[in-house]
C-alpha cells in the first residue's frame, strides 16, 4: 500500500496541466485532461477497493506516511494517507460521482469562456476533497477542509462578473469561516490535550478517557461547529441556498454529493471521541433532525428549481446528522452514499432542464417537459422516487435505516419528526416533479423552439447515476427486509474498537414487528402525500393558490425562509456593519490608519533621510565604517 498517493496525484496533475496550459491548448485538451484525471483516480480507487476487500480479511486499515511535514519542537506532523473501510467509501463516492459530473460538465460548460478555469477549479476540488478524506491527521484533514472551502468559493462565484454570484461566493466563504474557526479551536484543544494531531494516537489516547470527560465534550462540540458550517446545518445553513448561483454541475458535485457531507464523514471518523461525549451526540442528533424538518418545510413553497433542491440537500444532511447523532454511523454513511447518487442526479437533471430552457430556473415557467426531454424525465423520476423513499429505490433503504435507528437507539420523538420530514420531502419533491415535467407547459412559446434534449455527454451521466439511484441501495438491505446488509458488514472493522456501539446495538423489546409497522407508516405517509400532490398540481392547480391565500401568513413565512436571512441581517450583519462602521470611522480611520499611515510616513521620511546619508562619497563610507568599529570596540572596553 505504498501507492496510496496515486489516488489524489492525478487530479493534482490535472490542475497543473489545465491551469497552466489549458488556455493555450484549447477546450478539447481541457475536456480530456479534466475528466480524464478524475477517471484515472477513480480507476485506481477501484483497485484499492478490491485490494481492501480481498487482501484484508481482518479489515485492517492502511496508512502510508508520506513525509514529515512540520517538525518544530514537540509538534511533529507527518503527512500521511489512510485507506480503511471508511475512507474508501468516501473515495469511491468522490472520484466516482466526481468523474460522472466532470463528464457532464463537458457538455454543460461547452463554449463557456472560462472553460479551462472551470476544470482547473473542479480538479482542485477533487484533489482537496481526497486529501480531506484520506488524511491521517487532523491537520492534514484541515488542509483539505480549507481547500474544498476555497474551491467552493471560487466555483460559486465562477461567473463573477455578476455581483450576485460574487456575493454568494463571499457569503459561503464567510459563513464557513465561522465553522472553520470552531474546527480550528478544536484542533488546538486536541493538541493541548493529547500533544498530537495524528488520528491513530489521538484516538488511542482518548479511548482510555471517561465517558463525558468535559475536555472531550468541548473538543467534539468545537469540531461539530466546523461540521455545521461545512455541512450547512442550523444555524449556519444560510450559505447553501445562495451557493446555487454557481454552475449547476458544481451544485451537484460540491453542494450536494461530496463537500457538504464532509461534516458527517468527520464525525464518523472521530466516532471514538463522539462516543465519549453523549451530550454532544444528542446535540448532533437534535440539530440534525430540526434542520431536516425545518429546511424541508421551506422547500415546500420555493419556486426556483435549484433552491428547492438546495433546501432538500440541507434537509437530507440533517438526516445524516440524526443518524450519527444516535450512534448509527453506518446508517449515516449509507445515506451519505445513496444521497450522493440521487441528489447528484437531481441536480444534473435540473441542470439538463435549465439547459433545455435556455437558463430558466423558475418552476412557474416550466411544466409539461416530459415529451421534450424524455431521458431527463425518466432519470429524474428515478431520483425523485429514491429521495422520497419509495420501496425498492436506494433512498428507501438508507432512510428507513436512519428512521429505525432514530427510534431504536434514540427517541420516538426523533422518529416522529423524521417521518414528518419524510412526508414534507415527498411533498416538495413531487411538487417539483409535477411542476416541471407534467401538466401544461407554462413557458413562453418562443422558447419552445429551442427546447431540446441535452447532448449525449450529459444524458449518459444521468443514466449512470440513475442506475445507481435505483440499485445502489441493495448493498445495504437490512436484515429485517431479508437482506444481508453488506454495507454494514463492510463498515464493521472501522468500529470494532468501540465497544459502546456493540453494547447499544438494539433494545431487545423493540421487536421486528414494530420495525415493520414503523416502516409501513412512513410508506403510507409518502403515498398519501403523493396523492395530495397529484390532486393539487395536476388535477386542480387552483387549490395551490387557494391554500396559499388561506394560509397566507404561513405561506409567506415559508416562502421567505422564516425570514432567517432578514433576521441575520437585522440582528447580526447590520449591527456588525454599524459597529464596523463606527470602528472604521473612529478606530480605523483615525487610530489605525493614522498609526499605519503615520508609521508609513515616518518610515518613508526616515527612508528619505537615511537615503541622504548615502552620499556617494567614499570617504564618508569609510568614516561610517571606522566609526562603527570604534563604537563597538569602545562599548566592549567600557561596558
Amino acid at each position, binding site marked *: 500500500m505504498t501507492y496510496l498517493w496515486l489516488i489524489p496525484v492525478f487530479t493534482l496533475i490535472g490542475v497543473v496541466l489545465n491551469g497552466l496550459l489549458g488556455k493555450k491548448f484549447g477546450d478539447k485538451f481541457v475536456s480530456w485532461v479534466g475528466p480524464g484525471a478524475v477517471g484515472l483516480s477513480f480507476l485506481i480507487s477501484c483497485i484499492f477497493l478490491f485490494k481492501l476487500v480481498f487482501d484484508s480479511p481482518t479489515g485492517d486499515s492502511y496508512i502510508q506516511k508520506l*513525509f*514529515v*511535514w*512540520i*517538525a*518544530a519542537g514537540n509538534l511533529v506532523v507527518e503527512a500521511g494517507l489512510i485507506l480503511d473501510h471508511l475512507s474508501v467509501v468516501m473515495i469511491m463516492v468522490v472520484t466516482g460521482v466526481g468523474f460522472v459530473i466532470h463528464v457532464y460538465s463537458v457538455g454543460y460548460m461547452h463554449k463557456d469562456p472560462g472553460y479551462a478555469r472551470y476544470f482547473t477549479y473542479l480538479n482542485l476540488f477533487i484533489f482537496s476533497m481526497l486529501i480531506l478524506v484520506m488524511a491521517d491527521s487532523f491537520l492534514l484533514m484541515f488542509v483539505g477542509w480549507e481547500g474544498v472551502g476555497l474551491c467552493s468559493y471560487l466555483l460559486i462565484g465562477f461567473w463573477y462578473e455578476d455581483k450576485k454570484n460574487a456575493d454568494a461566493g463571499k457569503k459561503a466563504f464567510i459563513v464557513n469561516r465561522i465553522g472553520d474557526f470552531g474546527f480550528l479551536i478544536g484542533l488546538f484543544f486536541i493538541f493541548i490535550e493529547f500533544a498530537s494531531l495524528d488520528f491513530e494516537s489521538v484516538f488511542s489516547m482518548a479511548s482510555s478517557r471517561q465517558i463525558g470527560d468535559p475536555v472531550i465534550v468541548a473538543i467534539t462540540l468545537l469540531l461539530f461547529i466546523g461540521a455545521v458550517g461545512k455541512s450547512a446545518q442550523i444555524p449556519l445553513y444560510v450559505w447553501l441556498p445562495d451557493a446555487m448561483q454557481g454552475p449547476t454541475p458544481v451544485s451537484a458535485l460540491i453542494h450536494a454529493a461530496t463537500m457538504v457531507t464532509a461534516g458527517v464523514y468527520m464525525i464518523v471518523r472521530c466516532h471514538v471521541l463522539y462516543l465519549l461525549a453523549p451530550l454532544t451526540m444528542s446535540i448532533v442528533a437534535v440539530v440534525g433532525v430540526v434542520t431536516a424538518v425545518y429546511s424541508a418545510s421551506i422547500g415546500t413553497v420555493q419556486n426556483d428549481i435549484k433552491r428547492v433542491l438546495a433546501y432538500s440537500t440541507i434537509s437530507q444532511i440533517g438526516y445524516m446528522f440524526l443518524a450519527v447523532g444516535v450512534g448509527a454511523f453506518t446508517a449515516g454513511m449509507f445515506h451519505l452514499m445513496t444521497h450522493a447518487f440521487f441528489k447528484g442526479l437531481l441536480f444534473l437533471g435540473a441542470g439538463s432542464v435549465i439547459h433545455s430552457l435556455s437558463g430558466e430556473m423558475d418552476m412557474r415557467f416550466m411544466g409539461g417537459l416530459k415529451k421534450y426531454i424524455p431521458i431527463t424525465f425518466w432519470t429524474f423520476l428515478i431520483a425523485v422516487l429514491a429521495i422520497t423513499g419509495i420501496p425498492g429505490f436506494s433512498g428507501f433503504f438508507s432512510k428507513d435505516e436512519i428512521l429505525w435507528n432514530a427510534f431504536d437507539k434514540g427517541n420516538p420523538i426523533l422518529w416522529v419528526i423524521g417521518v414528518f420530514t419524510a412526508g414534507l420531502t415527498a411533498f416538495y419533491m413531487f411538487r417539483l416533479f409535477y411542476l416541471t415535467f407534467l401538466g401544461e407547459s407554462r413557458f413562453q412559446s418562443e422558447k419552445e423552439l429551442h427546447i431540446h434534449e441535452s447532448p449525449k455527454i450529459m444524458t449518459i451521466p444521468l443514466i449512470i447515476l440513475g442506475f445507481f439511484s435505483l440499485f445502489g441501495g441493495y448493498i445495504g438491505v437490512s436484515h429485517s427486509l431479508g437482506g444481508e446488509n453488506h454495507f454494514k458488514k463492510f463498515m464493521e472493522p472501522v468500529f470494532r474498537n468501540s465497544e459502546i456501539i456493540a453494547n447499544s446495538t438494539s433494545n431487545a423489546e423493540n421487536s421486528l414487528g414494530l420495525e415493520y409497522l414503523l416502516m409501513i407508516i412512513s410508506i403510507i405517509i409518502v403515498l398519501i402525500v403523493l396523492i395530495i400532490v397529484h390532486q393539487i398540481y395536476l388535477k386542480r392547480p387552483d387549490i395551490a393558490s387557494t391554500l396559499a391565500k388561506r394560509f397566507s401568513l404561513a405561506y409567506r413565512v415559508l416562502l421567505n425562509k422564516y425570514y432567517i436571512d432578514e433576521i441575520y441581517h437585522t440582528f447580526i450583519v447590520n449591527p456588525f456593519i454599524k459597529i464596523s462602521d463606527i470602528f472604521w470611522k473612529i478606530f480605523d480611520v483615525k487610530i489605525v490608519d493614522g498609526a499605519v499611515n503615520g508609521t*508609513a510616513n515616518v*518610515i*518613508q521620511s*526616515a*527612508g*528619505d533621510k*537615511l*537615503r541622504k*546619508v*548615502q552620499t*556617494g562619497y*567614499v570617504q*564618508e*563610507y*569609510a568614516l*561610517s*565604517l571606522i*566609526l*562603527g*568599529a570604534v563604537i*563597538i*570596540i569602545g*562599548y*566592549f*572596553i567600557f561596558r
Partner: protein
Amino acid sequence: MDYSIPTINLSVIGPEIIILLTAVSVLIIGLFPNYRRWSISIVFIGIIFAFYDIYYLWNLNQVGFDGMVLADNFALLFDIIFLIGTLLTLLLSGNFINQYIRGTGEYLSLILFATLGMMLMASTNDLIVIFLGLETLSISLYILAAFRRSREDSLEAGLKYFLLGAFTTGFLLYGIALIYGSTGTTNIYSILNFLKDGSVEIGILFYIGMILIIVGFGFKAAFVPFHMWVPDVYEGSATPVTAFMSAGVKAASFAVFLRLFITGFSPIISQITGILAVLAILTMTVGNVIAIVQTNIKRMLAYSSIAHAGYILVALTALSRNIESEFSAASIMYYILVYTFMNIGAFGVVIYMEKSEEEVLKISDYAGLGFKKPFAAICMTLFMFSLAGIPPTAGFMGKLYIFSSAVESELYGLAVIGVLNAVIAVYYYLRVVIFMYMKEAVLDFSYLSARPVMALSLSISVGGIIYLGIFPQSLINLLTNIL
C-alpha cells in the same frame, strides 16, 4: 629549529583544484576567438566535475595541509551552495557574455576565481587561509564590478568597492594579528584549545581582534553600519555580477562566521551577543526602511539584501547566545541556501527585463508584466513572496526557523523586531507584484524574446524555493546532522 614537510593531502582540495583548472583553461581559451564559444560549456563541465568530487568526498571528513584545510561536510555543503549560485548566475549571463564577447574568458574565469575563494574560505581551519580565500574572492569581485569599463558607474562601483574593501582588509588583518599575538596561533582549533585551557588570562586585545574580524566580514556580508558600499556597487555592476555578489559573498562570510563561532571562539562568544543583536536590529531595520523608498529595482534588491543579512544575523545572535544550538546553525544554512535561490532568481527576472544595459530598471516599468509575460511575472511573484516570507515558499520556512531559533535562545525582543521588520518588507516586495498584475502596462514588452537558458535558471530557482518551502524537513535534518 626542526622543520618537517607537512603532510599534504591534495584530494582535500579536489573541488577547488577542479574549479581552478577550469578557470585557467577558459582564460587561455579566451585568447583564441575561434574557440571562445566553447568556454561556457567547459565551465559547466568543470562545475559538474566539482559536484561529483564533492559527492565523492562527502562523509569522508578528509584533512590535509597539516590540518589547515579540511573537507568536512560543513565545507562541502557550503561548496554546494557556492556552486549552485555560480551555476545559476552563469545560466543568466548569456546576454551579458554576448555583449562583451571579447571578455568572455576573463568574465568566466573571474567568476570561477571568486567561487574558488569562497570555497577556500569555507573549507579551512586557519585564519590565514581564510584571509587568502577572502582576498581571492575580493580581488576577483573588484574587477567584476568594474567589468563594463566603458561605463562610468561601473568603474565607480569597482573603485569604491576596491577602496573600501582594501580599507576593511586592514581591519581584518589587524584582527588576525591581534589574535595571533595573544594566542600564538592562527589555527582555529588551537585558538579553541587556548581559550578552553584557561591557564592564560584572555586579554582585551584578543577581544578587540575578534571584533575586528567580525567587522571585516561584516563589511563583506553588508552589516549596518558597514554596508554603505552595497547600493552603489550593486547598482553600478552588471546585473549578473550583482546577482552573483549578493548571494555568494554573503554565503561565504556566514560560512566563516559559523566556523569561527562554533569552533574557535565558542567558549567566549556569548559575550558579544549584545553587540550582534544591535547589529542585527540595525541591519534589518536600515535595510528595510531604505528599501521602501527605492524606485530602482536593483537598488531595492540591494537594500533588501542588507535586510536579509540582518535576518541571518538574528540567527547568528541566537547561536552566539546558545552555542550548542544545532537548530540555530541549521537555520542559518537553510536560509543561505534559500536566499541563493530566491535572490539570484529575482535578479534573473531583472536581467531578463533589462532592455539594454541600465534600462527598464524602474519598479514602475514592471507594470502590466503579468499579462504580457506570464511566466516571468509568475516567477518574479514567487521570488517576491519568498523574499517577503509568504508561505508556501521557502522564504517563509527560513524566516520561521530563524525567528524560532531566536525564541529558542530566549531572545524574544529580537524575534519581535525581526517579525516587525518582515512586515515592513512585505510592503516593498508586494509593490512589485502589484505593479505586475494591477497596473496597465506602460512599456511595450515586444523586445522580450523567449530565452530558454534563462527560463531554465528561473525554473531551477522556483523549483528550489517551492520544494524547500513544502518539504523543508529533510534538508533541516541533513543540516543538523553535519554539525
